[in-house]
């Protein structure tokens, strides 16, 4: 396969909710094994853009290319089948089920099936989740532990490794480090590096600019439904923070020349 083709290319994505233009023609590119930080104030359109990519929203206009092939997502299943997975902000785990059950929730291994009767292959799922946890060096000893007994960082790790169980090539993370303590944040960032080294392309929505600075290759800033900044992360954290905030509050804008008005 041609390695120069971007894994994801979104072109001129538009989406309105009634009179509100949430996205006014946004472009996004994401390379192979690249980590993109997606930043913006509240209601800048980050979540809407990601929901378009994950198939939860159908855009009013624009094109999406995955590996150079144009695609159209009518629902989350369409996008999932192309290896796009979303890790939700509130972890989206079921507390009363164990780690292995959560990893394979909704996509269980079946030992035997007849019509609606489908027998779980618990052993394969437990071994498989053990393998995943080891691959990603997550410190959970026992996959038959109920998720409610895990720490915030461990829960996030389960939520993230859950998507890798299904050969996700493009992972979208919504605030993966919010509501975590310092040590857990470090572990989640380490996990993101792991995934990157395995060739996953990752988009991180985050308000924590230092996290994006640590693991991100590129940063993209949205403001009022438009892209105002898209650049490699090169500078040190202080300069980076200052620059990104300037874009976020509208003091700088690299794309003002392309404004419709």
């Amino acid at each position, binding site marked *: 396969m041609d390695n120069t083709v971007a894994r994801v290319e979104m072109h001129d994505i538009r989406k309105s909710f009634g009179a509100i233009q949430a996205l006014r023609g946004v472009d996004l590119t994401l390379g192979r094994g690249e980590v993109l930080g997606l930043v913006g104030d509240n209601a800048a359109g980050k979540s809407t853009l990601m929901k378009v990519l994950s198939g939860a929203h159908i855009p009013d206009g624009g094109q999406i290319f995955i590996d150079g092939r144009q695609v159209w997502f009518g629902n989350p299943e369409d996008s999932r089948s192309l290896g796009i997975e979303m890790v939700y902000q509130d972890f*989206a785990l079921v507390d*009363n089920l164990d780690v292995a059950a959560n990893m394979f*929730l*909704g996509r*269980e291994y079946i030992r035997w099936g007849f019509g609606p009767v*489908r*027998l779980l292959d618990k*052993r394969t799922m*437990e071994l498989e989740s053990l393998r995943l946890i080891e691959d990603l060096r997550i410190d959970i000893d026992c996959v038959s532990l109920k998720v409610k007994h895990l720490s915030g960082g461990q829960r996030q790790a389960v939520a993230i490794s859950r998507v890798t169980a299904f050969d996700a090539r493009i992972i979208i993370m919504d605030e993966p480090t919010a509501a975590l303590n310092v040590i857990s944040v470090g572990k989640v960032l380490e996990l993101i590096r792991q995934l990157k080294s395995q060739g996953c392309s990752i988009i991180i929505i985050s308000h924590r600019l230092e996290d994006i600075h640590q693991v991100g290759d590129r940063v993209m800033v949205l403001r009022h439904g438009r892209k105002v900044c898209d650049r490699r992360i090169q500078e040190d954290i202080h300069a980076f923070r200052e620059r990104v905030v300037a874009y976020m509050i509208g003091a700088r804008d690299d794309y003002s020349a392309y404004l419709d008005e």
Partner: protein
Amino acid sequence: MEDKKTVPSPKNFRLQRLLSIFSFREFSIAIAFVLLCFFFWWQRPGAFLKLANLKVIMRFVATFGLLAIGEILVIITDGIDLSVGSMTALTGVLAATFMVKGVGPIPPLAILPSILLVLTFSGLVGRWHGFCVTKLQIPSFIITLGTWLVARGMAKFITRGYPIVFPLDFPFLELGQGEIFQIPVMFIILVVVAVIAAFILRSTTLGRHIYAVGGNIEAARVAGINVDRVRSFCYISSGVMAGLVGLLLASRLGQGTPTVGSTYELWAIAATVIGGTSLRGGEGTITGAILGAAIMGVMFNGMVIVNMSPYVQETVLGAVLVIAVTYDMWRRRRSTN
């Protein structure tokens, strides 16, 4: 890597699974059940273990166990089904009407078609509950409370308040009164249904999805589970169980009575709660529900054979319920700390 995490060997793995059937909670309930049996046996050694008395207990356990199996599925998905008591009356009356009187100009039906018709009807009522809860977003408490009244009212309306009596040697009566090797047919039905239900909950994707829906319905939804279908399945099962119990009671009593099964929904809920089910959803096992029904059965029966005043009996049962729930909450709090 040298320090691999311990991967259970296939043999150990099966053993673990086998032992986990008796996870701590069910085990403590089972011990309570055994102690209770010992107590009544010690009080009235002659009466309690008499075959006839054991059969009485088995029929009781079958009635409430079957209702509890349907109820627990609904409760695990964080709902409740208050209609099952009234539904036993309505389905019993319908069964008697179909088999004995016939509907209007239609002559009485044969037994098997009548049974199927009644079970289908009760399933459809459950489907209706599922539809209201999932599509119309009506709280399960409200919609099943509606059926609780409607079903009872319809049972009274159909019969004009009088029981419809089956002929004395009607073959249908075997279902509730018959025995196979001294074991009541009702109890055998309970065992078969319980095994199927436990299998579904423990070992199939559907069972896992039922627990997932009760634990975190949004997470279940984004995981791609058809949440509405899972919940509907539970309400339908509860409806069918109520229909089945309605048939069994009608057969046991030899008549379709509009007053049968009143407050049975509460006993069914009590059985699940004694069996360690959380009314907040996401937890509960068939083993627990059956044990809960068994404890209630032995209590009911034991209090009679030790000549306890009927006025005190319900008080004692209420106290047992409160103690069981308090103990369970305390144990759960301790395990999370």
